[in-house]
């Protein structure tokens, strides 16, 4: 192309790319490098702009901080409960959906609603459903007592109760995406396999284990991996239920710890925040790698 020979023709593509390169460079590449530098600048305070040396102090500070350990524990419990639960439930629901062509579309629309809601706003609804106050038991407690249980304040009560609400809300929020992905991958399984199985008189349990599951296994693993990553980064759901002072509620998550370190009650320690963020990144990376290794062994493509 003749145009490319001129000097202008040569730089023109770069002019088109300039805005995206600038934005990505400033707000994605540079911060990525910078966060590792911060994480080694010991005790850097944002207000005074001073630190006291280079080394691993930030990491050891964070790893010995009881708030961080609490956040780590909360996040691990949340991940361990919500990822298997939401993946399993959405698999059951998608299987149910694919067996009823009649109302499939209506159900799908309803199930997708939580995806388009504001996490903070709907979290308030969950809060009032689970909360027990002086003047009202709250709806969930009413149900519990109706079935003979004992009511408990899920929002400001014991640890297990708070964790339970957080898990329930998280599952409620992440289900739409999983149902959507699984329903469409179920729909894309080649119908010939099922017809062949029918001719052979295969039982429906066997059809599920031998045909359906292997065919959609790549998608299930995709959901498990993204589910792990998402659950490790959860934060807004906890804020929605328990308010911004998560440390006081013992309900902080790792991401919440990072933001609290950066700004808020503990006030302006980017180096501690960076160390915590890097630790989170390493955890997520390790788990993703393990998942990929496991899926290589078990997934049929």
């Amino acid at each position, binding site marked *: 192309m003749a145009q490319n020979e001129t000097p202008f023709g040569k730089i023109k593509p770069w002019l088109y790319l300039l805005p995206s390169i600038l934005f990505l460079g400033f707000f994605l590449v540079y911060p990525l490098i910078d966060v590792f530098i911060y994480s080694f600048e010991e005790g850097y305070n944002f207000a005074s702009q001073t630190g006291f040396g280079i080394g691993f102090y930030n990491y050891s500070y964070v790893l010995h901080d009881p708030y961080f350990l609490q956040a780590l524990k909360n996040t691990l419990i949340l991940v361990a409960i919500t990822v298997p639960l939401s993946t399993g439930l959405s698999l059951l629901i998608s299987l149910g959906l694919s067996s009823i062509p009649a109302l499939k579309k209506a*159900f799908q629309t309803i199930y997708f609603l939580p995806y388009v809601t504001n996490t903070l706003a709907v979290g308030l609804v969950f809060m009032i459903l689970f909360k027990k106050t002086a003047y009202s038991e709250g709806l969930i407690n009413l149900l519990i007592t109706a079935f003979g249980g004992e009511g408990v304040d899920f929002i400001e009560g014991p640890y297990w109760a708070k964790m339970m609400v957080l898990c329930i809300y998280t599952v409620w929020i992440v289900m739409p995406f999983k149902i959507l992905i699984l329903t469409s991958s179920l729909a894309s399984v080649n119908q010939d396999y099922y017809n062949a199985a029918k001719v052979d008189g295969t039982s429906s349990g066997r059809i599920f284990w031998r045909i359906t599951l292997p065919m959609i296994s790549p998608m299930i693993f995709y959901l498990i991996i993204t589910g792990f990553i998402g659950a490790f980064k959860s934060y807004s759901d906890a804020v929605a239920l328990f308010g911004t002072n998560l440390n006081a509620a013992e309900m902080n998550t790792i991401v919440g710890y990072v933001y609290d370190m950066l700004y808020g009650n503990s006030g302006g320690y980017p180096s501690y925040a960076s160390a915590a963020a890097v630790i989170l990144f390493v955890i997520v990376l390790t788990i993703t790698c393990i998942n990929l290794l496991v899926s290589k062994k078990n997934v049929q493509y």
Partner: protein
Amino acid sequence: MQTQRDYALIERNAKIRRTCKNIFTYFCLGFWALIVLFPFYWMILTSVKSYSSYNSEYIPTFFTLSPTLENYTQAFTAVPLAKYFLNTAIFTVITTVLMLVVITLAAFAFSRLDFKGRNLLFVGFLSLMMIPTELVVITNYVTITNWDLRNTFTGLILPSVTSVFYIYLLKENFESIPDNLYYAAKVDGTTDLRYLLKVMVPIARPTLITITILKVIECWNSFVWPRLVTDESAYYLVSNGIQEIRENGFGRENIPAMMAAVVVISLPLIVLFLVFRDKIMEGVSRGGTKG
């Protein structure tokens, strides 16, 4: 005779079993639908109960015979909900428009223009998709603070103007447009920019609309970044606004007014979803995750 009766019996049993299975499936699906819908019902119901009647119900009732709209007026007068709305609208529109410009230009360069190192640069772009937001948000916060951009729209908007994933999506779409059109336009002496605007953008419109909707949802729900860079309520977006309302808005006890605010905040996206249902679901399944 015997075998025929047996056969009829087997068939009837199979039919009964199938019906039972269907009923069970419908029951389970309906139950989950109830769980999904109930919070929405409850927030609407609570938002139309009057303050006094809500607080006098020790056992909450499942419907109300005297709905009132006073909570909605209170939501707009007692707290600056309209202001939060306006802020969010400004933020959403500017971010989305800027992003569309940036990604369209980049996608065009990657799909139509020839230059040295194109593939290498594109791979570099793609690898950026793996960077988690949590890692970069710290430095971005420091940068924005150092530039004195806290509590400004510029500070809110700047970090979310580009998205590598959308560049990728759009580039794929641009590449499916036949090259012949491009060469024909070249022969006619059309400039690249004009070609991009007059031919490629109109053809890629469905993809652009999908991207726009997904970005609008993301902007409308963004919470973490706005929370970091704004601490004056004059710049709060709806997510931060609702948090502010919860912590010191109507007074902690005025749940009905709070729910009215929640309804008002949730409504725009739900309407958007019901209008563009297929586009949103298709877009999300192509690569959106919540968060």
